[in-house]
């Protein structure tokens, strides 16, 4: 049965020193068009004009107000698509970002074709393939360093928000096991110093830095501990073919995507510990019932054989998704942890893990994780005061 179709069309004409690019995205749900003008020399975006033909929510038309966020970006930039999703996708609309990325890549190809046509005037027999093998493809003729706005709310904008302060009633150690800082995680906007100060302020005992595929140096973390008089620990959120894994007690710097099986072997070799992060993030948006996904079915997922624990309280997923993860962990008898997954300063400590033991360093943390003397904590359900 035919379910869905999307057509994207890009057409480009030369207009003096610029390329006039018209993009159309038309599918069963959305219909939109853009006209983008690129400077041919550096492929900088000079102007963008958008038009909706079909949309879903009453506020979708607001997206047009923010398309100009991409003006000044160059289609020659290494991660042009990613940048479009950051600038236009988050502030305007991801479908416009998708179409802008398509237009940018097409503009790049158009320039290559035009340059080949020029080269043919000296050598009429030159084929396109011969031409591109002798030039460095997709590089700008000049440097294209362009100031990049992160496209995210700056932490200072939110720092005046009253925060909940956690009041511990028992001993042990309360740790946010999952936080991201900028620039170690490009998707975060939380400077590490501010994040640590916030963690102290709200009553955590420690934070564990789990930046994406990033190994913090021992010295840098020690310096942070001294500077803030606060326990700062190291972890790593590693992207595998089966999703994100929080890894503790491993020094190896993993780059690129690794299979979960290979990661497991690496972690075992260093006697570390793996927690599957937000295992059902986004999976329940369509509706569990419609998909027929039950905790019992989810327990059969092979990935759960390769992890030591499950993150059942994550600050970036829905309550339903956390509850679902909790049922799966409990059904399999796997330990459960909590972490905020903070990407902004004010998000730290939304969830955490309470260890019965006193944790003083990374080895203590790995030992405690293996002893399973801990439980996830929902800070909002345990707070007593507000600042």
């Amino acid at each position, binding site marked *: 049965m035919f*379910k869905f179709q999307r057509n994207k069309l890009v057409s480009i004409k030369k207009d003096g020193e610029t390329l006039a690019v018209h993009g159309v995205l038309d*599918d069963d749900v959305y219909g939109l068009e853009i006209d983008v003008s690129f400077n041919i020399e550096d492929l900088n975006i000079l102007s963008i004009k958008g038009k909706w033909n079909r949309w879903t*929510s009453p506020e979708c038309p607001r997206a047009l107000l923010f398309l100009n966020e991409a003006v000044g970006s160059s289609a020659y930039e290494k991660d042009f698509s990613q940048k479009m999703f950051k600038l236009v996708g988050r502030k305007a609309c991801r479908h416009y970002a998708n179409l802008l990325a398509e237009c940018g890549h097409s503009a790049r190809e158009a320039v290559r074709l035009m340059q080949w046509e020029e080269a043919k005037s000296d050598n009429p027999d030159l084929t396109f393939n011969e031409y591109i093998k002798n030039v460095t493809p997709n590089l700008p003729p000049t440097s294209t360093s362009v100031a990049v706005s992160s496209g995210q709310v700056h932490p200072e904008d939110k720092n005046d928000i009253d925060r909940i302060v956690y009041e511990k009633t028992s001993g042990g150690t309360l740790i946010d096991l999952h936080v991201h800082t900028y620039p170690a995680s490009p998707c975060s906007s939380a400077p590490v110093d501010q994040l640590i100060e916030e963690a102290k302020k709200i009553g955590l005992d420690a934070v564990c830095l789990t930046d994406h595929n990033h190994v913090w140096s021992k010295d840098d973390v020690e310096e942070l501990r001294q500077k803030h008089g606060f326990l700062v620990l190291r972890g790593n959120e590693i992207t595998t073919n089966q999703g994100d894994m929080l890894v503790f007690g491993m020094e190896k710097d993993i780059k690129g995507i690794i299979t979960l099986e290979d990661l497991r072997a690496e972690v075992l070799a260093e006697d570390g510990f793996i927690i599957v992060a937000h295992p059902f993030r986004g999976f329940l948006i369509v509706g569990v019932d419609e998909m027929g996904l039950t905790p019992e079915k989810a327990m059969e997922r092979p990935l759960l054989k390769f992890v030591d624990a499950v993150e059942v309280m994550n600050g970036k997923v829905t309550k339903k998704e956390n509850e679902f993860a909790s049922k799966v962990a409990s059904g399999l008898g796997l330990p459960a942890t909590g972490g905020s997954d903070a990407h902004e300063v004010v998000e730290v400590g939304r969830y955490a893990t309470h260890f019965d033991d006193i944790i003083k360093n990374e080895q203590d943390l790995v030992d405690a994780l293996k002893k399973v003397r801990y439980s996830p904590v929902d800070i909002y359900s345990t707070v007593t005061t507000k600042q």
Partner: protein
Amino acid sequence: MPRPLVFSRNRCTAVEQIDEQTFKSTCRLQDPLNDAFVQITVKLPDFEITGVTGEFYRTCQDECLDISQAFEKMKGVRIGSGMLKIIKGLVAEATGCRQLGFMIEECCHGVILSFTKDQLLQLPEGEEIPVEQYQQMVRDNVRLFNRCAAFAPGSSMVEGIDLT
């Protein structure tokens, strides 16, 4: 006399439901430099990619001619949050064929959007989702807040929502 276009591209993605639990999503790309197709098979309820096939009939990138190894790596990957960086790492970066990564992404987006379409079809004709329902969606799923212009401060869909 207007000059002809210097470049044009057509990318079409279509999704078919094979049986209750199986979807096929196919992306075709045609432009002066590329002629290619990629097809993924997806199983519910996990949205797991169980098969990938495809071919570049015309390309100026040698890396796009030998892509079968990337198909194997994609098996078992689930469509959903975080999939883009997995596709980028397993396909685009591993093979050097960036276009292959884009085509698989389009196939995945198509599958997700086919469910969006189904949800919209459940609404009675001419009826729109009330703003209050969007507001409840944001309360239920904090990730929606600030995800795009429609869910950003200033929009009626997030009016009165206190996420602190």
